């Protein structure tokens, strides 16, 4: 027996994204954001996208290219304060933005990846983020339902992958990546290093290969991945 090889070119993998698709993007700020896959998505130009990502990156980086190129219809996120374009487009009604508490976004994605319909929580129940959400009492405590999130495609950044799609992340580049890698119908991972089978020790695997559909070797570490000098 031999585990299958899922390596793909960047353009072939990203071509699976259709107009109007829901796309999850890993990353918290720079670390873990799949900048190379996003660049290819900008080059291919699919439109009407719903983007699910913790943040909107900063000017000239990642999500900002998708916004500038008019590809985003809707953004589900926790904080966009570092991207003035995202804030301006939201205020002008050019994109629809749904805000979510950060850990609840993580749990909604995890629930989606775990085949659950949603979660029950008391987080943000007394804020405007609770508007329109179903209230429910569980074991005598008040809660509300947060629906699970899934996507058509997840774009993931890994430090290491093997050709089967086992992934390993570095430091705080892990963040939403392993959660989103479970929650999409098609999971595309870019990796800084692609190893042969056996190149990742089983205990060093953060995302197991069965969740991953395509492994794309990055051409290199472009400027977007590097230290931001503010």
């Amino acid at each position, binding site marked *: 027996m031999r585990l299958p090889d899922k390596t793909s070119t960047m353009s072939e993998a990203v071509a699976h994204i259709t107009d109007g698709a829901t796309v999850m993007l890993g990353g*918290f*700020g*720079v*670390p*873990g954001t799949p900048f190379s896959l996003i660049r290819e998505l900008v080059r291919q130009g699919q439109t009407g996208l719903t983007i699910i990502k*913790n943040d909107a990156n900063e000017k000239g980086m990642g999500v900002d290219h998708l916004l500038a190129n008019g590809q985003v219809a809707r953004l589900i*996120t*926790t*904080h*966009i*304060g*570092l991207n003035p374009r995202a*804030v301006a487009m*939201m*205020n002008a009604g050019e994109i629809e*933005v749904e*805000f979510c*508490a*950060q*850990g*609840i*976004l*993580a*749990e909604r*994605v*995890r629930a989606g990846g775990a085949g659950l319909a949603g979660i029950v*929580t*008391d*987080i*943000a129940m*007394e*804020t*405007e*983020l609770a508007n329109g959400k179903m209230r429910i009492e569980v074991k005598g405590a008040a809660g509300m339902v947060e629906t699970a999130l899934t996507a058509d495609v997840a774009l993931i950044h890994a*430090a290491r992958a093997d050709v089967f799609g086992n992934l390993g*992340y*570095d*430091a*705080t*580049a*892990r*963040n*939403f*990546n*392993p*959660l989103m890698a479970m929650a999409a119908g098609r999971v595309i991972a870019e990796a800084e290093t692609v190893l042969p089978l056996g190149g990742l020790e089983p205990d060093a695997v953060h995302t197991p290969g069965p969740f991953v559909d395509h492994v794309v070797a990055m051409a290199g570490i472009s400027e977007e*991945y*590097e*230290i*931001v*000098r*503010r």
Partner: protein
Amino acid sequence: MTARAAREIAPGMVVNLGIGLPTKVVDHLAADFPVCLHTENGLSGIGPTLAPEHADRNLIDAGGAYVSTVPGSAFFDSAVSFALVRSGRLDLTMLGAFEVAETGDLANWKIPGRFSPGAGGGIELAQKARRVVVLTTHVDRDGVPKLRRACTLPVTARRCVDRVFTDMAVIDVTRAGFVLRELAEGVSFADVAAATDAPLARPKGEIPRF
């Protein structure tokens, strides 16, 4: 203020320091002080902040500062990071504020029409940390008191703030409202009361200085 707030951190605590003023509190902790600093983006055991030339591109805190690890640090995903917060493992969080109400309500994430970037992880920190302290200037740039009877801005969480450190005073939020605990050097009770838009109780005896 940040030096005084640093004394709020007890040995052995797990602590999350919010963006802004609270981040500076860590400068007042001794290098060998036993504490575990947590950041939302997936690190327990934050080490010193690094200059760009020494930074790891994959190692930041939730505010985007390049940080480091210490012996015993751990990385984890965003779900684990907030499991830690919501399940009561976070002993203390220090947050900034636009407004704090005498009931302990906190507003620090949105000014309708002017500032609406989203709350990030702030709601869970405010709602679920075992102890919530606020670090803020006593009044805003226009001189308007930040400590009030009720918040006028959208709240982050209700009845969550335990203590407020300002440039003028240390004030506890109790069931009976704001209670003065300490005064900054050169500031009188009357000064603080005048800069507070809610009743301020004054305990008997001399008020300690910080």
